[in-house]
C-alpha cells in the first residue's frame, strides 16, 4: 500500500522552505558582516570575512538589562496568571453558584476585547496609580489580558476529569484545598503547561503595553529595546540584526528542549 511520492507537493514544499528560510538566512548572515561590508556590498555577494563584532557591540550595551526586564515581566505575568487561574478554573468546574458561572461567561467575553482598544484607559489608570514607567505597569494589563485564554484552557481540561474522582476524594474527607493540590494540580499539569507557555510567549513578545506604559532605559523590555536599536545603531544594520538574532535565542532554546510544549502553548485553546 505504499503510495508513490507526491512530486508537485514536494516541489511546493521546497519553494515554501526557501521563502521561510531565506529571510532567516539573511538575518544570520548579515548579523555576521561588518557595517562597511553591509553598506559597500550587495546582500547577495559573499562577504570577505565574517565577524562577531556586532554581537559584542550588542552585548556590551543595554541588551542584558532589556533581557532581564523581559524575564521579570514574563515570570511575573506567568506567576500571576497561574496563581489566579488554577483555583478559579477549579471553582468554575466544581462550584455551580451563579456568581462563579456568570463571572466565567463574562471573563470569556474578554476573548473579544482587543487589548489595543483599551490602551488609552489603561494608560490613564496606570498614570493615576503612579505606576507609569515601571515593569508593574506592563505586567498588570498583560496578565489581565492573558486570563480569558488561560481560563478557557484550564476549564476545558478540568471538565474532562471524571466526576467520580472528585467524589472519591470527598468521601475520603478531603477538603477543597486538598483536592486542588492532590487531584486538580496533577491532572491539569499539561493544561497548566500550555497556559504557562502561552502566557509567557505573550508577555515575552508584548509590545504595545511597554510602548505606552514605560519610557526609560531601566524599564525597557527587549521588544522595545530592539526597536530602539533601530534608531541607536542607525545604518549599522548588522548590529541591529545581531540584536534580533540574540533576542530569538532564548525561545529557540525552549523550542529545542520542549518543542511539543511550545507548540501546544502557541495554539492554546484553538488546536483540537
Amino acid at each position, binding site marked *: 500500500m505504499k503510495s508513490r511520492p507526491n512530486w508537485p507537493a514536494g516541489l511546493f514544499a521546497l519553494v515554501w522552505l526557501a521563502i521561510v528560510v531565506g529571510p532567516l538566512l539573511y538575518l544570520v548572515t548579515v548579523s555576521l558582516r561588518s557595517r562597511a561590508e553591509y553598506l559597500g556590498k550587495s546582500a547577495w555577494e559573499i562577504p570577505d570575512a565574517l565577524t562577531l563584532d556586532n554581537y559584542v557591540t550588542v552585548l556590551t550595551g543595554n541588551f542584558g538589562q532589556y533581557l532581564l526586564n523581559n524575564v521579570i515581566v514574563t515570570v511575573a505575568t506567568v506567576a*500571576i496568571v497561574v496563581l489566579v487561574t488554577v*483555583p478559579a478554573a477549579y471553582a468554575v468546574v466544581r462550584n455551580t453558584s451563579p456568581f462563579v458561572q456568570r463571572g466565567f461567561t463574562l471573563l470569556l467575553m474578554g476573548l473579544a476585547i482587543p487589548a489595543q482598544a483599551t490602551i488609552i484607559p489603561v494608560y490613564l489608570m496606570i498614570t493615576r496609580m503612579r505606576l507609569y514607567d*515601571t515593569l508593574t505597569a506592563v505586567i498588570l494589563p498583560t496578565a489581565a489580558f492573558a486570563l480569558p485564554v488561560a481560563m478557557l484552557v484550564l476549564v476545558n481540561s478540568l471538565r474532562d476529569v471524571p466526576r467520580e474522582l472528585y467524589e472519591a476524594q470527598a468521601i475520603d474527607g478531603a477538603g477543597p484545598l486538598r483536592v486542588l493540590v492532590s487531584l486538580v494540580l496533577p491532572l491539569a499539569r499539561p493544561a497548566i503547561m500550555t497556559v504557562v507557555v502561552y502566557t509567557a510567549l505573550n508577555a515575552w513578545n508584548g509590545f504595545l503595553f511597554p510602548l505606552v506604559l514605560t519610557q526609560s532605559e531601566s524599564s525597557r523590555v527587549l521588544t522595545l529595546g530592539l526597536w530602539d536599536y533601530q534608531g541607536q545603531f542607525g545604518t549599522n544594520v548588522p548590529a541591529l540584526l545581531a540584536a534580533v538574532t540574540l533576542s530569538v535565542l532564548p525561545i529557540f532554546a525552549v523550542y529545542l528542549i520542549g518543542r511539543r510544549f511550545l507548540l501546544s502553548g502557541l495554539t492554546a485553546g484553538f488546536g483540537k
Partner: protein
Amino acid sequence: MSRRSWVRPLLAMGLVAVTAVVSACGTSGPGETSAGSLKIWALEDPVLNKIEQKSIDSFKANGGNASLETFGNDPYKQRLRVAMGSPQAPDLFFNWGGGNLKEYVDAGKVADLTSVLEENKAAKDAFIPSVLDGAKLDGKYYGVPMRGMQPVLLFFNKQVFKDAGVEPPTTWDQLLTLVDTFKAKNITPIALAGTQAWTELMWAEYVLDRFAGHEVFKNIRDNGPAGWKDPAVVAAMSKLKELIDRGGFGQSFASVGYDAGGASTLLAQGKAAMHLMGTWEYTNQLDQSPDFVKQGNLGWVAFPSIPGGKGDPSNLVGNVSNFYSATADSKNLDAAKKFVTTTLHEDSYIDALIEAGDVPPVVGAEEKLKKSPNPEYASFIYELVLDTKNFQLSWDQDLPADDATFMLTQLQEFFLGKVSPQQFVDAVAAR
C-alpha cells in the same frame, strides 16, 4: 470544624504573594522627591545630560537642592502632558519654546519669569535676545535658554560636488539646476528621510519663509488654521512641488528614515549630494561615518535664497534653543527662579556646552567657540544666528500637538504627490 475556615487565609496569602511579586517590580519607578528639592525634567541626551547634572551639582554646592530626570523625545512630551495636570509636575521643565510652550502657558501652568529676569540683568543680558524671545509669549518671558542653538542647514558632500565641478547653491534656481546635474550623474540630488515627516517639514518651512516671509506662518500660529489660506502658501508649496516633481529627492525617499540613519549614510557615501537637516547632523555624521567628516567632505551652507521672494535670506528655521520653564504652582518656585538665573549663563556651564560641540545662545561667545571641537562649524552657526532677522521654531513644535500631527500627515501625502498644494492648504486650513 469547617475546612473553609483555613481556605480563606490561604487564599489571602496567595494574594499577598502576588502583590509582593508585583510591588517588588514597582520599586524601580521614580521615587518622590523630598520637599524643597527642585525636580527638573529634561530630554534624554547622553552628552548634554552630564552637563546639566553638573549645573545641578554646582547649584547644590551653593546651598540649593535639585535632581534631574530625563526622558526620550516622544515619551517626554507624553509624560510632561500628564504630569502638568497632576501633583507630580516637575518644578522646572525642558521645552522648545514657542507654541509648544504656549499650550501650557494658556492653561495657566507656567510661571512668568519676566520680573526675575529684569532683576537679574546679568542673566538676561547674557543671552542672545532673539533666542531669549523664543520663549516670550504676549510680551512675557516664560523660559530661559539651556541648550545650544540648532538651525537647519543645507549639508552637502564636498567630494560629490567637486567631481561634478559644481558649487553649493546660493539661490533656488541654482538648486534646481543642481538637481538636473546630479540626476544626470545618477546621484540622488537631495537625501530625504521621508518616513519621518519632520524632515520634509524643514523644506516646507524654508520655502515658505524665503518665498513669502516669516509673517505668514506667524499669522497661522497666532490666529489659527485659517491663516493657511494665505495665497502665498499655495504658491510656495507649488515651488516645492516643482522640486519634488523634478526628482530632487529621488524615488525612494518614502522608505528612507532619519533615525535609522538612511539619509545621512546616503550623503556620506556620495549616493546623495545634499541633505537639509538640523545642526545635529554634524555630530550624527561624526558618529556614524567618522571618515567622511574627518576627510573634510562634509560641507554646509545656509538655505538658498529665492530671488524675488519676500523673506529675508538670513532667516532661519529649526530649534531656536531649548528652555527651562518653571511650573506656576510649584512649591519651589523661588528656588526654580534662582536656578535659571544663576546656573545657565555661568562660564563653566557655557564652556561645557561648547566642549560638547553645542553652540550656546549667549552673546560674545566668538572667542570661546574657537575652543570647540569643531570651531569652523560652531562659528558658522553662531554667526548665522547673530545675523538672522528671524529664527522660526519648527512648525511642529510651534503648533498645538493635534494640529501639528495632522499637518505632518498631510505633508507626507503632499510629498508623495497624493495631494496637490491646494488640497494641502484646504486640508490644514479646515482643522
